[in-house]
């Protein structure tokens, strides 16, 4: 992967109730990633940026809702999320990372 691509794959951490639960229970950390990111790419990017060992990556595409407004139909952005499982004993502190 070309160097620049690393910085473009990850859009940011996804913080929610579920994300907290999986982080504490399974050692999985949730990120929002670009729509065209692949699992190997995400793995590489995270290992490079956070200096951790990635066990596995699972992704999902979240289609944006269509919303009706006065001016007709609108559509919210699609989001691709990645659940990244780290090697045992490793973690990412988003507060510090940000």
């Amino acid at each position, binding site marked *: 992967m070309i160097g620049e691509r690393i910085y473009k794959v990850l859009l940011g951490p996804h*913080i*929610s*109730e579920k994300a907290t639960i999986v982080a504490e229970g399974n050692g999985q950390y949730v990120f929002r990633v670009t729509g065209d990111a692949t699992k190997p790419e995400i793995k590489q990017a995270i290992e490079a940026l956070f200096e951790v060992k990635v066990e596995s990556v699972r992704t999902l595409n979240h289609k944006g809702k269509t919303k009706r407004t006065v001016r007709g139909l609108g559509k919210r952005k699609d989001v691709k999320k990645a659940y990244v499982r780290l090697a045992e004993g490793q973690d990412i502190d988003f507060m510090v990372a940000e």
Partner: protein
Amino acid sequence: MQVSVETTSPIERVLTISVPAARVDEKVNSEVAKTAKTIRIDGFRKGKVPVSVVKKRYGQGIRIDAVEQIMRDAYVEALQKESIQPAGAPSIEPKSLAEGADLEFVIKVEVYPEITLADNSAIKVERIISEVTDADVDTMLETLRKQNSEWTSVERESADGDQVTIDFVGYLGDEAFEGGAAQGHKLVLGSNTMIPGFESGILGAKAGEERTISVTFPEDYQAENLKGKEASFKITVSEVAEQVLPELNDAFVEKFGLEEATLDALRAEVRKNMDRELNQAVKSKLKNSLFEGLSSINEVEVPSALIDQEVDGLRKQAGQQFGGQGFDVSQLPAELFQDEAKKRAKLGLLISEIIKSNEMKVDDERVYAFLEEMAQAYQEPQQVIDFYLKNKEQLSQVQSAVLEEQVVDKLLESAQVTEVTLGYEDAIKPKAQAEEVGEEA
């Protein structure tokens, strides 16, 4: 919690307090849990934010708040435990704030000094004995006559004390200068309201007479262009009037709105007022000199917090005297009031010590008597008394005044009192003036 007290001076205590880490953590955790219930963070439903997230985000701030609160609580607790009476706000300085370690901090606080009252018999005061005599009443009536005097125009040369009505124009060289002219100006000769030489220049003039006088403006005259200049004034006297004192008769008495318009009634009324004034003056002089004596025989270190309080009070008073609303009181320098404030604070300490050591309480009968006396000065005494009795705040002011009186009595019992007989005039003069008079005599 561990407390160690150090006495650095009679009015200062240094407390070193250490609170175990467990107590701090417990407090922090409970605070975090409380915040988690109410806080709103994106991505979480309200009240469902995990404690770990809250701690990560707000832990630092919460900890600081908690530590502050613990320090305050510990301070209060320590005061009770060591039975310390603080005289002002403490200065708290944390020593170690690190997480996980025991919390240690140092508190410096001023306390009321322990006062051992010196023997009151060392106080020397003069008690003024004075009475209103008939002559004093006459003098007062004379003053009243002067205040109610009238001017009647006379056909004769003006003399000292007369009021003249004049038109005048002032010239510098040949030119009339600005502000140097007036018409129908009323001037009392000998009142020294004009520049020197002006009034004496008119002396002896009759109504209708024209005079030109030359005077020199003084060097310190307020108008720049006239300072030290020589000027001539063209003056036309249109009227000379003489002061006429009203006759002491019933018609004169009527002006004062007494119920019974007779001279005797007026005399009685004047006498009553003078008596009251004299009474008050004598009382307050005695009180002041007693208190002065009290503070001169006792050495007390006064906590600076108390002095600051007094300074604030004096500042406010001064602000009211200058009268302007929106006058920024805090601009007045504290040094201005420092000495006076210190005196007051010291006296306050001494008086409260006397009250405490003699277990004095407010005497309700005296309060009532005090109110009655005060109410005498008003039209409807009973209403005034009722007002005070109903109004808690006012009443407590009266009570403290009475308590002060009781302290005065207590002091009088043991102090060395010399009696001085003075005339009415001298007796009601403010202290500073009276002293001067004494020195001259």
